[in-house]
């Protein structure tokens, strides 16, 4: 059962453009994490958001946790080719159980 839906599934943009990736669920999570995965590697954690409405910034990346702790968004400003990769959200439920989203494959064209 896929609890977390991400949109869009694929995204190809020009360097310098802005983009937003969405992660939606009908379930409430104690926290939510975002990972980036590059080809041939495992996912690497970018951020953890815990409080409903929380906003965290990591350089050009802005992460927001929904007020009801069911959804999240990732906004990238002025995308660069190094941002290319598969972005995964993961909802964390009680008992430290992780549920990964469907993924968004981002390609930033120089």
């Amino acid at each position, binding site marked *: 059962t896929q609890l977390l839906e991400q949109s869009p599934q694929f995204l190809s943009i020009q360097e310098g453009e802005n983009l937003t990736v969405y992660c939606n669920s009908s379930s409430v999570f104690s926290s939510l994490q975002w990972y980036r995965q590059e080809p041939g590697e*495992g*996912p690497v954690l970018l951020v953890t958001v815990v409080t409903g409405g929380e906003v965290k910034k990591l350089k050009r990346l802005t992460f927001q946790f929904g007020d009801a702790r069911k959804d999240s968004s990732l906004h990238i400003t002025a995308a660069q080719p190094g941002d290319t990769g598969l972005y995964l959200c993961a909802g964390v439920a009680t*008992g*430290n159980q992780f549920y*990964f*989203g469907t*993924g968004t494959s981002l390609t930033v064209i120089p």
Partner: protein
Amino acid sequence: DARVTQTPRHKVTEMGQEVTMRCQPILGHNTVFWYRQTMMQGLELLAYFRNRAPLDDSGMPKDRFSAEMPDATLATLKIQPSEPRDSAVYFCASGLVRGVGTDTQYFGPGTRLTVL
């Protein structure tokens, strides 16, 4: 720089053969996760261990898959017999659960399995 290691990195086998994948978690971590990633299903949790005890293996086909932690430095995932539909990238991740709060999972590089 501590990392999760997985062996082998690539495995090609024929249907019906036994496959064993190994994972060495980061020293001191007390949780280990096994995931399977495919284009169609994404990243699926297969098994979850804490302090070497299996907490959840509901995502794992019980008739052919088994996961164990013989000791704190080794986790194994076995498939017997393997089938073409098992072709996927299998990831191991380890973490440290200290009670309250969310802990980070550190993923290994994965084992790419192809069953012919």
